């Protein structure tokens, strides 16, 4: 019994689907952001696993990619939370069921 690439990929897949469900089904805007962060994490985990198991040991491209993803995720989180704040200030709610200005 040993830990192989497929184990890490399975963890990544489960984490991704949980994140997807949270992003799709949660009513709270901050909750949706949390789901997106979970998906980022799943993808990062997969990238690092491939970097460890598939690419040659001297190649750190996978790690560099993850650093970029983390950077962009930080920017995205800051912006999304600022948006949530603005929406709350204008609409008194961050419940996305009630944010339907552009619906029809």
């Amino acid at each position, binding site marked *: 019994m040993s830990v192989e690439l497929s184990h890490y990929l399975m963890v990544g897949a*489960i984490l991704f*689907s*949980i*994140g997807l469900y949270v992003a799709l089904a949660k009513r709270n805007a901050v909750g949706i952001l949390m789901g997106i962060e979970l998906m980022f994490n799943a993808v*990062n985990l997969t990238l690092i696993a491939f970097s460890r198991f598939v690419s040659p040991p001297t190649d750190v491209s996978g790690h560099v990619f993850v650093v970029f993803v983390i*950077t962009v995720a*930080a920017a995205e989180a800051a*912006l999304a939370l*600022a948006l949530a704040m603005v929406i709350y200030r204008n609409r008194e709610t961050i419940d996305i069921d009630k944010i339907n200005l552009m619906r029809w």
Partner: protein
Amino acid sequence: MEDVGSIVAFWVLSVVTVGAALMVVAVRNLIHAVLFLILSFIGVAGLYITLSADFVAITQILIYAGAISVLILFAVMLTPRAARDNAETFLQLPGLVLAALVGVTVGAIALVTDWNEATRGPFSETAAAIGEALLDKYVLPFEIASVILLAAMVGAIVLVRED
């Protein structure tokens, strides 16, 4: 990775990560959900360490557990008590089905595909190599990332300004 330590570490960390992610879905209180999310982030950092990605693991703790989750907590606190529940929309069932389908598809592909696995070297220190790659091969993405960060910072400040 055949030795007992890394196998035990992998299983413990996987269970913590996935369990905490499931609790993010299950708990009704948004603050508890954020706390479980932080636990999940830390579990992923542990999984990075089992993959001998030391720099990325520390960065994960610094950015995700230290910065992003604190931002989320802050945002939750600045909205009122009524907005702090973690309930689902009417899209709960379709969301569940879609997430399950995606998960099963990705998992099946991961299991079926014959990955071209390279021989794994011993643990090597990645911090210096990542630094060199960032300023050599990936210098353009690096600069673009810094511009994105600056734009996001300015944008966030402009959005939440009160005047």
